[in-house]
C-alpha cells in the first residue's frame, strides 16, 4: 500500500464537520420525532426505520439534500438561504435548521475557514463544502447520514432502543440515503417538493407539548 494515490484529507474534513462531536447542539433537536414517539407512532426499531425512511424520501431529507446540492453546484448563496427560510414549514423546523446552521458557520469560520453568515444548516454546509474535492453525491449522502444518525440517537435515548438496534436501523437506511442523495443531484428551486404532510402537523404540535426534552 505504499504507492497509493495522495491522500484526500477533504473526506476527513467533511466527516469532522458532520460528526456528532461537531458543536452544533444537534442532540437537542428531534425533528418532532419526540412527539411521534410519545403518541405511539414510533415505538420500536422497525417503526423508527420506517419513519426515518419516509422523512428522507418525502420530507426534510430530500429537501435538505436538494438545497445542499444547489449550493455545491454554484447557485447564489443568498438565494438558496432565502429559499431554505421560505420552505420552513413551522417555527421549530426553522429554529432547528437555523440554529444548527448558525453554529456550523460560526465553528467553521473560527477554525480558520471562510466567514459564513448565519443560515440554514444544509446551505451553510454547502458553502463550506464548496472548497472540498469531493463528489457532490458523497457530500449529500454524508449530510443525510449525519441527519439520520442524530435522529437515531434521539430515538435510542427516548424510545428507548438498544444501541445496537439503533445502529442496525441506521445501517439499514444506507441504500435509502444513497438513493435520496442521487435523486437530489438535479435539484432546482422549482423541483423541491414535500409530501411530509403529517410530519409537518406533528412539528407544529410539538410546540404545544407541555413537557418535552427536545427543542423540536
Amino acid at each position, binding site marked *: 500500500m505504499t504507492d497509493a494515490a495522495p491522500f484526500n484529507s477533504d473526506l476527513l474534513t467533511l466527516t469532522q464537520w458532520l460528526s456528532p462531536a461537531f458543536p452544533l447542539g444537534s442532540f437537542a433537536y428531534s425533528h418532532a420525532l419526540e412527539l411521534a414517539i410519545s403518541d405511539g407512532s414510533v415505538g420500536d426499531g422497525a417503526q423508527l426505520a420506517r*419513519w426515518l425512511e419516509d422523512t428522507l424520501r418525502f420530507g426534510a431529507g430530500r429537501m435538505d439534500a436538494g438545497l445542499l446540492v444547489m449550493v455545491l453546484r454554484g447557485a447564489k448563496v443568498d438565494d438558496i438561504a432565502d429559499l431554505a427560510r*421560505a420552505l420552513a414549514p413551522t417555527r421549530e423546523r426553522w429554529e432547528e435548521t437555523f440554529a444548527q446552521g448558525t453554529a456550523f458557520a460560526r465553528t467553521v469560520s473560527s477554525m480558520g475557514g471562510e466567514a459564513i453568515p448565519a443560515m440554514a444548516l444544509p446551505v451553510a454546509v454547502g458553502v463550506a463544502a464548496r472548497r472540498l474535492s469531493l463528489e457532490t453525491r458523497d457530500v449529500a449522502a454524508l449530510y443525510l447520514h449525519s441527519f439520520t444518525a442524530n435522529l437515531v440517537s434521539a430515538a435510542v435515548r427516548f424510545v428507548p432502543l438498544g444501541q445496537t438496534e439503533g445502529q442496525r436501523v441506521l445501517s439499514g437506511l444506507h441504500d435509502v440515503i444513497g438513493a435520496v442523495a442521487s435523486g437530489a443531484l438535479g435539484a432546482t428551486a422549482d423541483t423541491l417538493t414535500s409530501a411530509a404532510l403529517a410530519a409537518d402537523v406533528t412539528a*407544529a404540535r410539538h410546540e404545544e407539548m407541555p413537557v418535552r426534552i427536545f427543542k423540536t
Partner: protein
Amino acid sequence: MQRVNGRAAVVMGPRGVIDLHQSGSAKAMLPRVHDTAAEVVFLNTSGGLTGGDVMRFSLEAQAGTRVVGTTQTAERAYAASAGTAQVCVDLSVGAGGVLDWLPQETILFEGASLARETRCEMADDAQFCCVETVVLGRAAMGERLNNVHFSDRRVVKRGARLDWIEPVQITPQVLDARASAVTLAGQRAFSTVVLLARGAEDGVERLRSVSREGVTAGVSGWDGKLVVRAMASDGWPLRRYVARILERMRGTDLPRVWQ
C-alpha cells in the same frame, strides 16, 4: 388535446373594480357584500379539470384595498387520459392592502393529474391570508386513490424577498406510503392555512384554542407568519375546522359560498 382553457382576472382598487377579464370557461363574479372587503368569486364553468386543461385565475388588491377571493365550488380533478391539468393562480397585494385567498377544497379522483401553482406578490406592509384544502377521494364513496399525480405549489414574495413556499407533491409512491406517520398518517384530507403579515405570529395562542374536533392540527407562528396545519379522515370535518380557524383569524364572516 386541450379540453378547457379559461382565464379570469380581476383588479380591485380602494373604490372597487378597476379591471375585469374573463375568457373560456373561467368566470369571476363580484357579489354585493356588506363588508369593508370586496369579494371576488372565481368559477370554472366546465365543472372539473382533466388532462390538458389550463385554468388561470388572477386577483390583484391594489394599495390600500381589502379583497377576499374565493371559488364558487370545490375544484374537482378527474382522471386524465393524457397530460396534466394546469391551474395558475396569480395574486398580488399592494402597500397596506389585505388579500384573503380562500378557495374551496380541491377533490382529487383516481387517475387525476393536476399541477397547480399559486403565486402571490405582496408589499412589505400588506397582509395575505391563504388556505388550501385537498381531499384525496371521497370517504363516503369508499374511494381509495392509488394513481394520482398532484403538484400544488404556493410561492409568496414579500417585498423583494421570497417569504413562503409550500411545495406539496402527491404521487403514487406517496399514496403507497399513506399509512406512514410522516406522509398522510392514513388520512384523506389535509389543509394549510397561512397568514402573512407583520406581527402575524402573535395570533398563535388565539388559534390554538379553536376546537379541533374531528381533526389533527397544529399551529405555529414566527417571523410574520402564522401557520395552521391540519388533517382529517375526510373533507367535512376539515372544512369545518378551517372555517372555525378563518373566523377566529379574520374576525369576520366567511364568504357566503363557504356557508
